[in-house]
Protein backbone atom coordinates (compact mmCIF):
# COMPACT_ATOMS: atom_id res chain seq x y z
CA UNK A 1 0.00 0.00 0.00
CA UNK A 2 1.39 3.36 -0.91
CA UNK A 3 1.93 5.97 1.71
CA UNK A 4 -1.22 7.91 1.02
CA UNK A 5 -4.40 7.29 -0.87
CA UNK A 6 -5.17 9.87 -3.52
CA UNK A 7 -7.72 12.39 -2.51
CA UNK A 8 -9.45 15.30 -4.14
CA UNK A 9 -8.82 17.54 -1.20
CA UNK A 10 -5.73 19.71 -1.40
CA UNK A 11 -3.38 20.87 1.26
CA UNK A 12 -2.16 17.56 2.57
CA UNK A 13 1.46 18.30 1.88
CA UNK A 14 1.36 21.60 3.68
CA UNK A 15 -0.63 20.40 6.66
CA UNK A 16 1.26 17.16 7.07
CA UNK A 17 4.60 18.81 6.57
CA UNK A 18 3.93 21.48 9.15
CA UNK A 19 2.63 18.86 11.57
CA UNK A 20 5.75 16.77 11.22
CA UNK A 21 8.00 19.78 11.56
CA UNK A 22 6.24 20.95 14.67
CA UNK A 23 6.21 17.52 16.26
CA UNK A 24 9.81 16.97 15.33
CA UNK A 25 10.99 20.19 16.87
CA UNK A 26 8.80 20.26 19.94
CA UNK A 27 8.54 16.58 20.77
CA UNK A 28 11.02 14.37 19.03
CA UNK A 29 14.09 16.50 19.39
CA UNK A 30 13.80 16.92 23.16
CA UNK A 31 12.93 13.25 23.58
CA UNK A 32 15.94 12.36 21.50
CA UNK A 33 18.03 14.42 23.87
CA UNK A 34 16.61 12.41 26.72
CA UNK A 35 17.40 9.16 25.01
CA UNK A 36 20.90 10.39 24.18
CA UNK A 37 21.51 11.39 27.75
CA UNK A 38 20.23 8.05 28.95
CA UNK A 39 22.38 6.25 26.43
CA UNK A 40 25.29 8.27 27.66
CA UNK A 41 24.74 6.85 31.09
CA UNK A 42 24.76 3.38 29.71
CA UNK A 43 22.66 0.57 31.01
CA UNK A 44 24.80 0.14 34.05
CA UNK A 45 24.74 3.80 34.93
CA UNK A 46 20.99 3.85 34.54
CA UNK A 47 20.59 0.81 36.68
CA UNK A 48 22.81 2.24 39.40
CA UNK A 49 20.92 5.51 39.48
CA UNK A 50 17.60 3.71 39.40
CA UNK A 51 18.35 1.32 42.20
CA UNK A 52 19.73 3.99 44.44
CA UNK A 53 17.67 3.64 47.64
CA UNK A 54 16.09 7.05 47.64
CA UNK A 55 15.01 6.68 44.02
CA UNK A 56 13.58 3.25 44.70
CA UNK A 57 11.62 4.62 47.62
CA UNK A 58 10.32 7.51 45.57
CA UNK A 59 9.24 5.27 42.71
CA UNK A 60 7.62 2.85 45.11
CA UNK A 61 5.66 5.63 46.79
CA UNK A 62 4.66 7.15 43.45
CA UNK A 63 3.51 3.90 41.88
CA UNK A 64 1.94 2.43 44.97
CA UNK A 65 -0.16 5.46 45.82
CA UNK A 66 -1.03 6.02 42.16
CA UNK A 67 -2.28 2.45 41.94
CA UNK A 68 -4.42 2.86 45.03
CA UNK A 69 -5.82 6.19 43.88
CA UNK A 70 -6.58 4.86 40.42
CA UNK A 71 -8.37 1.88 41.93
CA UNK A 72 -10.55 4.06 44.16
CA UNK A 73 -11.21 6.42 41.28
CA UNK A 74 -12.20 3.53 39.02
CA UNK A 75 -14.88 2.37 41.39
CA UNK A 76 -16.25 5.76 42.27
CA UNK A 77 -15.78 6.93 38.72
CA UNK A 78 -18.03 4.18 37.37
CA UNK A 79 -20.63 4.95 40.01
CA UNK A 80 -20.47 8.68 39.29
CA UNK A 81 -20.69 8.07 35.56
CA UNK A 82 -23.74 5.84 36.11
CA UNK A 83 -25.56 8.32 38.30
CA UNK A 84 -24.77 11.29 36.06
CA UNK A 85 -25.83 9.48 32.90
CA UNK A 86 -28.83 7.45 34.01
CA UNK A 87 -30.55 9.54 36.63
CA UNK A 88 -32.23 12.91 36.39
CA UNK A 89 -32.03 15.18 39.40
CA UNK A 90 -31.63 18.89 40.07
CA UNK A 91 -28.02 20.01 39.84
CA UNK A 92 -27.01 17.12 37.61
CA UNK A 93 -25.52 19.35 34.95
CA UNK A 94 -23.58 21.27 37.55
CA UNK A 95 -22.09 18.11 38.99
CA UNK A 96 -21.31 16.82 35.53
CA UNK A 97 -19.34 19.97 34.78
CA UNK A 98 -17.65 19.77 38.18
CA UNK A 99 -16.13 16.41 37.25
CA UNK A 100 -13.83 18.30 34.90
CA UNK A 101 -12.53 20.56 37.65
CA UNK A 102 -9.31 18.62 38.27
CA UNK A 103 -8.73 18.79 34.56
CA UNK A 104 -9.28 22.50 34.18
CA UNK A 105 -7.85 23.75 37.45
CA UNK A 106 -4.12 24.57 37.53
CA UNK A 107 -2.26 21.98 39.53
CA UNK A 108 -0.64 24.51 41.83
CA UNK A 109 -4.03 25.93 42.78
CA UNK A 110 -5.36 22.47 43.50
CA UNK A 111 -2.22 21.77 45.46
CA UNK A 112 -2.49 24.65 47.88
CA UNK A 113 -6.23 24.24 48.22
CA UNK A 114 -5.93 20.58 49.17
CA UNK A 115 -3.01 21.27 51.49
CA UNK A 116 -5.01 23.93 53.30
CA UNK A 117 -8.13 21.80 53.43
CA UNK A 118 -6.42 18.80 54.98
CA UNK A 119 -3.90 20.62 57.15
CA UNK A 120 -4.34 20.06 60.89
CA UNK A 121 -6.16 23.39 61.16
CA UNK A 122 -8.05 22.97 57.90
CA UNK A 123 -11.78 22.31 57.50
CA UNK A 124 -11.43 18.59 56.96
CA UNK A 125 -8.00 18.17 58.46
CA UNK A 126 -9.25 19.71 61.66
CA UNK A 127 -12.15 17.26 61.91
CA UNK A 128 -9.88 14.33 61.22
CA UNK A 129 -7.31 15.57 63.70
CA UNK A 130 -9.99 15.33 66.33
CA UNK A 131 -10.20 11.64 65.46
CA UNK A 132 -6.45 11.35 65.64
CA UNK A 133 -6.02 11.04 61.87
CA UNK A 134 -3.30 13.03 60.16
CA UNK A 135 -3.62 13.60 56.44
CA UNK A 136 -1.51 16.54 55.32
CA UNK A 137 2.23 15.95 55.02
CA UNK A 138 1.75 12.18 55.02
CA UNK A 139 1.29 9.62 52.28
CA UNK A 140 -2.41 9.83 53.00
CA UNK A 141 -2.31 13.41 51.79
CA UNK A 142 -0.65 12.34 48.58
CA UNK A 143 -3.36 9.74 48.14
CA UNK A 144 -6.12 12.31 48.52
CA UNK A 145 -4.48 14.62 46.01
CA UNK A 146 -4.10 11.81 43.50
CA UNK A 147 -7.73 10.77 43.89
CA UNK A 148 -8.66 14.37 43.11
CA UNK A 149 -6.41 14.65 40.11
CA UNK A 150 -7.24 11.36 38.39
CA UNK A 151 -11.02 11.29 38.81
CA UNK A 152 -12.07 12.87 35.49
CA UNK A 153 -10.28 10.12 33.59
CA UNK A 154 -12.26 7.30 35.13
CA UNK A 155 -15.58 9.06 34.78
CA UNK A 156 -15.19 10.31 31.22
CA UNK A 157 -14.04 7.00 29.76
CA UNK A 158 -17.07 5.15 31.08
CA UNK A 159 -19.75 7.78 30.53
CA UNK A 160 -20.12 7.44 26.73
CA UNK A 161 -20.48 3.68 27.06
CA UNK A 162 -23.18 3.95 29.66
CA UNK A 163 -25.04 6.38 27.46
CA UNK A 164 -24.91 3.91 24.59
CA UNK A 165 -26.18 0.87 26.43
CA UNK A 166 -29.09 -0.62 24.55
CA UNK A 167 -31.96 -0.66 27.00
CA UNK A 168 -33.66 -3.55 25.26
CA UNK A 169 -30.75 -5.73 26.40
CA UNK A 170 -31.55 -4.82 29.99
CA UNK A 171 -35.21 -5.53 29.33
CA UNK A 172 -34.30 -8.88 27.78
CA UNK A 173 -32.39 -9.80 30.90
CA UNK A 174 -35.41 -8.90 33.03
CA UNK A 175 -37.80 -10.93 30.89
CA UNK A 176 -35.50 -13.91 31.39
CA UNK A 177 -36.01 -13.65 35.12
CA UNK A 178 -32.90 -11.79 36.24
CA UNK A 179 -33.22 -9.42 39.17
CA UNK A 180 -31.88 -5.90 38.76
CA UNK A 181 -28.70 -6.79 40.61
CA UNK A 182 -28.16 -9.85 38.40
CA UNK A 183 -28.65 -7.74 35.30
CA UNK A 184 -26.08 -5.25 36.53
CA UNK A 185 -23.60 -7.92 37.48
CA UNK A 186 -23.95 -10.19 34.43
CA UNK A 187 -24.79 -7.81 31.63
CA UNK A 188 -23.91 -4.22 32.40
CA UNK A 189 -20.60 -4.54 34.22
CA UNK A 190 -19.04 -6.81 31.56
CA UNK A 191 -20.12 -4.32 28.93
CA UNK A 192 -18.38 -1.52 30.81
CA UNK A 193 -15.29 -3.49 31.77
CA UNK A 194 -13.01 -2.43 28.91
CA UNK A 195 -13.80 1.23 29.47
CA UNK A 196 -13.27 0.88 33.20
CA UNK A 197 -9.90 -0.70 32.63
CA UNK A 198 -8.90 2.00 30.18
CA UNK A 199 -9.99 4.61 32.68
CA UNK A 200 -7.96 2.91 35.37
CA UNK A 201 -4.87 2.89 33.16
CA UNK A 202 -5.26 6.56 32.25
CA UNK A 203 -5.88 7.53 35.85
CA UNK A 204 -2.83 5.58 36.92
CA UNK A 205 -0.64 7.25 34.30
CA UNK A 206 -1.84 10.67 35.39
CA UNK A 207 -1.41 9.95 39.07
CA UNK A 208 2.14 8.71 38.67
CA UNK A 209 3.17 11.86 36.79
CA UNK A 210 1.44 14.36 39.01
CA UNK A 211 3.56 17.09 40.56
CA UNK A 212 1.89 20.40 41.34
CA UNK A 213 -1.16 19.06 43.16
CA UNK A 214 0.95 16.84 45.35
CA UNK A 215 3.96 18.79 46.49
CA UNK A 216 2.09 21.07 48.86
CA UNK A 217 0.20 18.39 50.72
CA UNK A 218 2.91 15.79 50.58
CA UNK A 219 5.47 16.77 53.15
CA UNK A 220 8.14 15.53 50.76
CA UNK A 221 10.08 13.62 53.36
CA UNK A 222 12.55 11.30 51.60
CA UNK A 223 11.62 7.66 51.84
CA UNK A 224 8.28 8.53 53.38
CA UNK A 225 6.29 11.01 51.36
CA UNK A 226 8.55 11.92 48.48
CA UNK A 227 7.25 11.11 45.03
CA UNK A 228 9.38 10.45 41.98
CA UNK A 229 8.75 13.75 40.16
CA UNK A 230 9.84 15.65 43.28
CA UNK A 231 13.05 13.66 43.37
CA UNK A 232 13.69 14.52 39.73
CA UNK A 233 13.41 18.23 40.57
CA UNK A 234 15.69 17.86 43.55
CA UNK A 235 18.29 16.11 41.47
CA UNK A 236 18.09 18.91 38.91
CA UNK A 237 18.55 21.49 41.60
CA UNK A 238 21.64 19.58 42.69
CA UNK A 239 22.83 19.77 39.09
CA UNK A 240 22.68 15.99 39.05
CA UNK A 241 21.23 15.82 35.56
CA UNK A 242 22.09 12.17 35.23
CA UNK A 243 20.24 11.16 38.33
CA UNK A 244 17.23 13.12 37.20
CA UNK A 245 17.39 11.56 33.75
CA UNK A 246 17.59 8.05 35.11
CA UNK A 247 14.40 8.40 37.11
CA UNK A 248 12.74 10.14 34.17
CA UNK A 249 13.64 7.29 31.84
CA UNK A 250 12.08 4.74 34.16
CA UNK A 251 8.92 6.77 34.44
CA UNK A 252 8.77 7.13 30.67
CA UNK A 253 9.28 3.43 30.18
CA UNK A 254 6.34 2.86 32.44
CA UNK A 255 4.21 5.42 30.63
CA UNK A 256 4.98 3.65 27.39
CA UNK A 257 4.04 0.29 28.90
CA UNK A 258 0.74 1.77 30.06
CA UNK A 259 -0.02 3.12 26.58
CA UNK A 260 0.61 -0.33 25.15
CA UNK A 261 -1.62 -1.84 27.81
CA UNK A 262 -4.41 0.58 26.94
CA UNK A 263 -4.19 -0.37 23.30
CA UNK A 264 -4.25 -4.04 24.22
CA UNK A 265 -7.27 -3.53 26.46
CA UNK A 266 -9.10 -1.74 23.71
CA UNK A 267 -8.47 -4.44 21.14
CA UNK A 268 -9.47 -7.08 23.68
CA UNK A 269 -12.65 -5.13 24.21
CA UNK A 270 -13.29 -5.01 20.49
CA UNK A 271 -12.74 -8.74 20.15
CA UNK A 272 -15.04 -9.54 23.02
CA UNK A 273 -17.85 -7.34 21.87
CA UNK A 274 -17.34 -7.57 18.17
CA UNK A 275 -17.07 -3.95 17.33
CA UNK A 276 -16.60 -1.88 20.51
Amino acid at each position, binding site marked *: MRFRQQSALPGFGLAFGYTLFYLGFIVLLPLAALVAEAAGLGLRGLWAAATEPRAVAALRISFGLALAAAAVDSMFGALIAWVLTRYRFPGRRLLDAAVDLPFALPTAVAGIALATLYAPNGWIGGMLAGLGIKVAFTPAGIFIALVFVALPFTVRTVQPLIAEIDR*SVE*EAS*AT*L*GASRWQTIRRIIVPMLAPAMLTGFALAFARAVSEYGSVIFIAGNLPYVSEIAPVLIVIRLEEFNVRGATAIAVIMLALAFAILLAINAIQSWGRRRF*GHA
Partner: protein
Amino acid sequence: MRIRVVDIAKEFGRTGALRGVSLAIEDGELIALLGPSGSGKTTLLRVIAGLEAPNAGRVYFGEEDATALPVQKRRIGFVFQNYALFKHMSVRDNIAYGLHVLRGAARPSGTAIRKRVDELLDLMQLSGLGDRRPWQLSGGQQQRVALARALAVDPAVLLLDEPFGALDARVRKDLRRWLRQLHERTGHTTVFVTHDQEEALELADRVAILNSGKIEQVGSADEVYDNPASAFVMSFIGDTSSIPVAFDGARASYGGEPFEAPFEGHRHGPGRLYVRPRDIAIAPPQPGLLVGRVAKVHRTAAGRRAQIAIGDSETIVEAEIGIDQPLHEGERVGVRLLKVKAFAE
Protein backbone atom coordinates in the same frame (compact mmCIF):
# COMPACT_ATOMS: atom_id res chain seq x y z
CA MET B 1 -51.84 -20.33 29.42
CA ARG B 2 -54.87 -18.14 28.90
CA ILE B 3 -54.15 -14.43 28.92
CA ARG B 4 -56.73 -11.77 29.45
CA VAL B 5 -56.32 -8.02 29.40
CA VAL B 6 -59.27 -5.97 30.61
CA ASP B 7 -59.76 -2.27 29.91
CA ILE B 8 -56.08 -1.44 29.64
CA ALA B 9 -55.25 2.25 29.38
CA LYS B 10 -51.70 3.55 29.01
CA GLU B 11 -50.50 7.06 28.46
CA PHE B 12 -47.10 8.46 27.61
CA GLY B 13 -47.14 12.11 28.55
CA ARG B 14 -50.37 13.37 27.15
CA THR B 15 -50.62 10.97 24.23
CA GLY B 16 -52.79 7.97 24.97
CA ALA B 17 -51.12 4.91 23.55
CA LEU B 18 -53.87 2.55 24.69
CA ARG B 19 -57.43 3.53 25.46
CA GLY B 20 -59.62 0.91 27.04
CA VAL B 21 -58.28 -2.23 25.37
CA SER B 22 -59.65 -5.66 26.24
CA LEU B 23 -58.57 -8.95 24.72
CA ALA B 24 -58.78 -12.63 25.59
CA ILE B 25 -56.07 -14.94 24.32
CA GLU B 26 -56.67 -18.69 24.36
CA ASP B 27 -54.21 -21.24 25.60
CA GLY B 28 -51.92 -22.43 22.82
CA GLU B 29 -53.16 -19.79 20.38
CA LEU B 30 -50.94 -17.91 17.96
CA ILE B 31 -52.39 -14.42 17.79
CA ALA B 32 -51.13 -11.38 15.93
CA LEU B 33 -51.44 -7.77 17.07
CA LEU B 34 -51.65 -5.90 13.80
CA GLY B 35 -51.82 -2.20 13.14
CA PRO B 36 -50.06 0.82 11.72
CA SER B 37 -47.25 2.69 13.44
CA GLY B 38 -48.50 4.35 16.61
CA SER B 39 -51.54 2.10 16.96
CA GLY B 40 -50.45 0.87 20.39
CA LYS B 41 -49.76 -2.73 19.47
CA THR B 42 -46.22 -2.78 20.85
CA THR B 43 -47.39 -1.00 23.98
CA LEU B 44 -50.05 -3.67 24.49
CA LEU B 45 -47.45 -6.39 24.11
CA ARG B 46 -45.17 -4.70 26.62
CA VAL B 47 -48.05 -4.32 29.06
CA ILE B 48 -48.72 -8.04 28.80
CA ALA B 49 -45.01 -8.65 29.34
CA GLY B 50 -44.82 -6.41 32.36
CA LEU B 51 -42.29 -4.08 30.74
CA GLU B 52 -44.84 -1.29 31.00
CA ALA B 53 -47.29 -0.77 33.81
CA PRO B 54 -50.78 0.23 32.64
CA ASN B 55 -52.41 3.39 34.00
CA ALA B 56 -55.69 1.49 34.31
CA GLY B 57 -57.02 -1.99 33.70
CA ARG B 58 -55.92 -5.46 34.66
CA VAL B 59 -53.86 -8.28 33.19
CA TYR B 60 -54.69 -11.91 33.97
CA PHE B 61 -52.38 -14.87 33.44
CA GLY B 62 -54.68 -17.83 33.74
CA GLU B 63 -56.77 -17.13 36.83
CA GLU B 64 -54.15 -15.00 38.52
CA ASP B 65 -54.25 -11.22 38.48
CA ALA B 66 -50.78 -10.44 37.21
CA THR B 67 -51.15 -6.68 36.87
CA ALA B 68 -48.77 -5.92 39.70
CA LEU B 69 -46.49 -8.89 39.06
CA PRO B 70 -42.96 -7.79 38.04
CA VAL B 71 -41.73 -8.91 34.66
CA GLN B 72 -39.16 -11.28 36.16
CA LYS B 73 -41.89 -13.36 37.77
CA ARG B 74 -44.28 -13.64 34.85
CA ARG B 75 -42.53 -16.54 33.12
CA ILE B 76 -42.71 -14.96 29.72
CA GLY B 77 -40.39 -15.27 26.76
CA PHE B 78 -39.82 -11.99 24.93
CA VAL B 79 -38.17 -11.57 21.54
CA PHE B 80 -37.12 -8.07 20.50
CA GLN B 81 -37.01 -6.64 17.01
CA ASN B 82 -33.29 -5.96 17.28
CA TYR B 83 -32.67 -9.33 18.97
CA ALA B 84 -31.11 -7.75 22.11
CA LEU B 85 -28.58 -10.57 22.34
CA PHE B 86 -25.82 -10.28 24.94
CA LYS B 87 -22.84 -9.42 22.82
CA HIS B 88 -20.21 -10.41 25.35
CA MET B 89 -21.55 -13.96 25.63
CA SER B 90 -21.46 -16.90 23.27
CA VAL B 91 -24.62 -18.22 21.67
CA ARG B 92 -24.71 -20.99 24.28
CA ASP B 93 -24.43 -18.61 27.18
CA ASN B 94 -27.10 -16.39 25.69
CA ILE B 95 -29.52 -19.27 25.44
CA ALA B 96 -28.65 -20.57 28.89
CA TYR B 97 -28.96 -17.15 30.53
CA GLY B 98 -32.48 -17.59 31.83
CA LEU B 99 -31.43 -20.86 33.43
CA HIS B 100 -28.28 -19.41 34.92
CA VAL B 101 -30.12 -16.67 36.76
CA LEU B 102 -32.47 -19.06 38.50
CA ARG B 103 -31.71 -19.26 42.14
CA GLY B 104 -31.47 -21.97 44.71
CA ALA B 105 -33.32 -25.21 44.12
CA ALA B 106 -34.92 -24.01 40.93
CA ARG B 107 -31.62 -23.82 39.14
CA PRO B 108 -30.78 -26.93 37.14
CA SER B 109 -27.34 -28.54 37.19
CA GLY B 110 -24.67 -27.61 34.69
CA THR B 111 -25.24 -30.81 32.75
CA ALA B 112 -28.97 -30.29 32.59
CA ILE B 113 -28.48 -26.76 31.33
CA ARG B 114 -26.05 -27.92 28.68
CA LYS B 115 -28.47 -30.56 27.54
CA ARG B 116 -31.32 -28.10 27.26
CA VAL B 117 -29.17 -25.69 25.26
CA ASP B 118 -28.21 -28.48 22.87
CA GLU B 119 -31.87 -29.38 22.43
CA LEU B 120 -32.72 -25.81 21.60
CA LEU B 121 -29.81 -25.39 19.21
CA ASP B 122 -31.14 -28.42 17.38
CA LEU B 123 -34.69 -27.17 17.38
CA MET B 124 -33.60 -23.82 15.99
CA GLN B 125 -31.29 -25.41 13.43
CA LEU B 126 -28.29 -23.72 14.97
CA SER B 127 -26.30 -26.82 15.86
CA GLY B 128 -22.59 -26.22 15.71
CA LEU B 129 -22.94 -22.49 16.22
CA GLY B 130 -23.06 -22.69 19.99
CA ASP B 131 -19.63 -21.24 20.60
CA ARG B 132 -19.93 -18.35 18.19
CA ARG B 133 -20.49 -14.78 19.24
CA PRO B 134 -23.73 -13.08 18.17
CA TRP B 135 -22.10 -10.71 15.71
CA GLN B 136 -20.65 -13.63 13.82
CA LEU B 137 -24.15 -14.79 12.86
CA SER B 138 -26.55 -13.57 10.22
CA GLY B 139 -29.67 -11.63 11.15
CA GLY B 140 -31.91 -14.62 10.74
CA GLN B 141 -29.62 -16.76 12.89
CA GLN B 142 -29.46 -14.12 15.58
CA GLN B 143 -33.22 -13.95 15.75
CA ARG B 144 -33.38 -17.73 16.14
CA VAL B 145 -30.90 -17.47 19.01
CA ALA B 146 -33.14 -14.85 20.60
CA LEU B 147 -36.07 -17.21 20.22
CA ALA B 148 -34.11 -20.11 21.69
CA ARG B 149 -33.10 -17.93 24.61
CA ALA B 150 -36.72 -17.01 25.25
CA LEU B 151 -37.84 -20.63 25.07
CA ALA B 152 -35.11 -22.00 27.31
CA VAL B 153 -36.99 -21.28 30.53
CA ASP B 154 -40.17 -22.87 29.18
CA PRO B 155 -42.27 -19.74 29.34
CA ALA B 156 -46.01 -19.72 29.80
CA VAL B 157 -46.39 -17.36 26.87
CA LEU B 158 -44.14 -16.23 24.05
CA LEU B 159 -44.20 -12.55 23.10
CA LEU B 160 -42.58 -11.33 19.91
CA ASP B 161 -42.15 -7.65 19.05
CA GLU B 162 -41.91 -7.32 15.25
CA PRO B 163 -39.53 -10.28 15.29
CA PHE B 164 -38.72 -10.15 11.59
CA GLY B 165 -38.80 -6.40 11.14
CA ALA B 166 -35.04 -6.03 10.85
CA LEU B 167 -34.56 -8.80 8.29
CA ASP B 168 -34.53 -9.02 4.50
CA ALA B 169 -37.77 -9.88 2.76
CA ARG B 170 -36.53 -13.33 1.76
CA VAL B 171 -35.31 -14.25 5.23
CA ARG B 172 -38.53 -12.91 6.64
CA LYS B 173 -40.64 -15.24 4.53
CA ASP B 174 -38.56 -18.26 5.48
CA LEU B 175 -38.64 -17.47 9.17
CA ARG B 176 -42.36 -16.86 9.05
CA ARG B 177 -42.98 -20.34 7.77
CA TRP B 178 -40.50 -21.74 10.20
CA LEU B 179 -42.13 -19.97 13.16
CA ARG B 180 -45.49 -21.47 12.28
CA GLN B 181 -43.97 -24.95 12.20
CA LEU B 182 -42.29 -24.31 15.52
CA HIS B 183 -45.55 -23.24 17.03
CA GLU B 184 -47.26 -26.41 15.85
CA ARG B 185 -44.52 -28.47 17.44
CA THR B 186 -44.24 -26.73 20.79
CA GLY B 187 -47.72 -25.33 21.27
CA HIS B 188 -46.79 -22.24 23.32
CA THR B 189 -49.34 -19.47 23.59
CA THR B 190 -47.78 -16.89 21.29
CA VAL B 191 -48.52 -13.22 20.78
CA PHE B 192 -46.67 -11.34 18.11
CA VAL B 193 -46.74 -7.75 16.97
CA THR B 194 -46.46 -6.77 13.33
CA HIS B 195 -47.40 -4.00 10.95
CA ASP B 196 -47.20 -6.38 7.99
CA GLN B 197 -50.71 -7.66 7.31
CA GLU B 198 -49.52 -10.41 5.02
CA GLU B 199 -47.42 -11.76 7.86
CA ALA B 200 -50.29 -11.59 10.32
CA LEU B 201 -52.78 -13.26 8.03
CA GLU B 202 -50.38 -16.01 7.04
CA LEU B 203 -49.14 -16.88 10.52
CA ALA B 204 -51.82 -16.28 13.04
CA ASP B 205 -54.82 -18.25 14.25
CA ARG B 206 -56.47 -14.96 15.05
CA VAL B 207 -55.63 -11.36 14.31
CA ALA B 208 -56.34 -8.37 16.56
CA ILE B 209 -56.33 -5.15 14.60
CA LEU B 210 -55.43 -2.00 16.49
CA ASN B 211 -55.85 1.60 15.50
CA SER B 212 -55.05 4.65 17.62
CA GLY B 213 -54.98 2.73 20.86
CA LYS B 214 -58.17 0.76 20.36
CA ILE B 215 -58.92 -2.73 19.05
CA GLU B 216 -61.00 -2.47 15.89
CA GLN B 217 -61.60 -6.17 15.37
CA VAL B 218 -60.43 -9.57 16.52
CA GLY B 219 -60.96 -12.61 14.33
CA SER B 220 -59.49 -15.20 12.05
CA ALA B 221 -57.86 -14.20 8.79
CA ASP B 222 -61.03 -15.04 6.86
CA GLU B 223 -63.21 -13.09 9.24
CA VAL B 224 -61.21 -9.88 9.10
CA TYR B 225 -60.74 -10.16 5.38
CA ASP B 226 -64.29 -11.06 4.39
CA ASN B 227 -66.23 -9.42 7.20
CA PRO B 228 -64.32 -6.35 8.29
CA ALA B 229 -65.96 -4.61 11.20
CA SER B 230 -65.00 -1.09 10.21
CA ALA B 231 -63.75 0.98 7.32
CA PHE B 232 -60.32 1.03 8.92
CA VAL B 233 -60.07 -2.75 8.99
CA MET B 234 -61.32 -3.01 5.44
CA SER B 235 -58.75 -0.59 4.08
CA PHE B 236 -55.92 -1.87 6.25
CA ILE B 237 -56.33 -5.51 5.25
CA GLY B 238 -55.87 -6.16 1.56
CA ASP B 239 -56.27 -3.68 -1.23
CA THR B 240 -59.44 -1.64 -1.30
CA SER B 241 -61.03 1.09 -3.31
CA SER B 242 -63.54 3.37 -1.66
CA ILE B 243 -66.38 5.26 -3.30
CA PRO B 244 -68.18 8.15 -1.62
CA VAL B 245 -71.94 7.66 -2.06
CA ALA B 246 -75.30 8.76 -0.75
CA PHE B 247 -77.39 5.97 0.76
CA ASP B 248 -81.14 5.76 0.53
CA GLY B 249 -82.46 2.63 2.14
CA ALA B 250 -81.13 -0.29 0.12
CA ARG B 251 -79.93 1.86 -2.72
CA ALA B 252 -76.83 3.97 -3.25
CA SER B 253 -76.18 6.79 -5.64
CA TYR B 254 -73.00 8.45 -6.85
CA GLY B 255 -73.13 12.00 -8.08
CA GLY B 256 -76.88 11.88 -8.01
CA GLU B 257 -77.06 8.75 -10.16
CA PRO B 258 -78.22 5.54 -8.46
CA PHE B 259 -76.42 2.33 -9.35
CA GLU B 260 -76.28 -1.37 -8.44
CA ALA B 261 -74.56 -1.81 -5.12
CA PRO B 262 -75.09 -5.13 -3.32
CA PHE B 263 -74.48 -3.98 0.26
CA GLU B 264 -76.19 -5.40 3.28
CA GLY B 265 -78.84 -3.72 5.33
CA HIS B 266 -80.46 -0.30 5.08
CA ARG B 267 -78.60 2.94 5.41
CA HIS B 268 -79.37 6.59 5.01
CA GLY B 269 -77.28 9.61 4.38
CA PRO B 270 -73.71 9.98 3.06
CA GLY B 271 -71.12 7.20 3.43
CA ARG B 272 -68.64 5.12 1.51
CA LEU B 273 -68.66 1.81 -0.29
CA TYR B 274 -65.55 -0.35 -0.08
CA VAL B 275 -64.70 -2.93 -2.68
CA ARG B 276 -61.78 -5.27 -3.36
CA PRO B 277 -60.09 -5.33 -6.80
CA ARG B 278 -61.22 -8.92 -7.30
CA ASP B 279 -64.84 -8.03 -6.75
CA ILE B 280 -65.06 -5.54 -9.60
CA ALA B 281 -66.07 -6.59 -13.12
CA ILE B 282 -65.57 -4.41 -16.19
CA ALA B 283 -68.57 -4.26 -18.54
CA PRO B 284 -69.75 -2.06 -21.35
CA PRO B 285 -71.15 1.20 -20.01
CA GLN B 286 -74.85 0.98 -19.25
CA PRO B 287 -77.37 2.59 -16.95
CA GLY B 288 -77.45 1.06 -13.46
CA LEU B 289 -73.70 0.73 -13.41
CA LEU B 290 -71.06 3.20 -12.40
CA VAL B 291 -69.41 4.62 -15.46
CA GLY B 292 -65.89 5.89 -15.83
CA ARG B 293 -62.75 6.16 -17.91
CA VAL B 294 -59.78 3.82 -17.78
CA ALA B 295 -56.99 5.94 -16.33
CA LYS B 296 -54.21 3.38 -16.23
CA VAL B 297 -53.57 -0.29 -16.87
CA HIS B 298 -50.57 -1.89 -15.23
CA ARG B 299 -48.99 -5.24 -14.64
CA THR B 300 -48.74 -6.81 -11.20
CA ALA B 301 -47.04 -9.99 -10.10
CA ALA B 302 -50.38 -11.79 -10.15
CA GLY B 303 -51.93 -10.35 -13.29
CA ARG B 304 -53.19 -6.99 -14.46
CA ARG B 305 -55.00 -4.15 -12.85
CA ALA B 306 -56.92 -1.24 -14.22
CA GLN B 307 -57.47 2.08 -12.49
CA ILE B 308 -60.76 3.58 -13.48
CA ALA B 309 -61.76 7.15 -12.81
CA ILE B 310 -65.44 7.22 -11.94
CA GLY B 311 -67.80 9.97 -12.91
CA ASP B 312 -66.08 13.32 -12.56
CA SER B 313 -62.65 11.70 -12.26
CA GLU B 314 -62.17 12.35 -8.58
CA THR B 315 -62.82 8.80 -7.46
CA ILE B 316 -60.48 6.07 -8.63
CA VAL B 317 -61.31 2.38 -8.28
CA GLU B 318 -58.84 -0.37 -8.96
CA ALA B 319 -60.01 -3.61 -10.58
CA GLU B 320 -58.31 -6.89 -11.32
CA ILE B 321 -58.61 -7.77 -14.99
CA GLY B 322 -57.56 -10.76 -17.03
CA ILE B 323 -54.14 -10.86 -18.62
CA ASP B 324 -55.71 -10.93 -22.03
CA GLN B 325 -58.65 -8.69 -21.36
CA PRO B 326 -58.58 -5.95 -23.99
CA LEU B 327 -58.73 -2.64 -22.17
CA HIS B 328 -57.19 0.63 -23.26
CA GLU B 329 -56.44 3.80 -21.42
CA GLY B 330 -59.05 6.39 -22.04
CA GLU B 331 -61.73 3.82 -22.80
CA ARG B 332 -65.16 4.41 -21.33
CA VAL B 333 -66.36 1.43 -19.29
CA GLY B 334 -69.01 0.37 -16.89
CA VAL B 335 -68.03 -0.82 -13.43
CA ARG B 336 -70.02 -3.64 -11.85
CA LEU B 337 -69.54 -4.16 -8.12
CA LEU B 338 -69.89 -7.82 -7.23
CA LYS B 339 -69.33 -7.54 -3.52
CA VAL B 340 -69.17 -4.39 -1.41
CA LYS B 341 -69.16 -3.27 2.15
CA ALA B 342 -70.81 -0.09 3.32
CA PHE B 343 -69.53 2.10 6.11
CA ALA B 344 -70.42 5.52 7.35
CA GLU B 345 -67.00 6.99 6.62
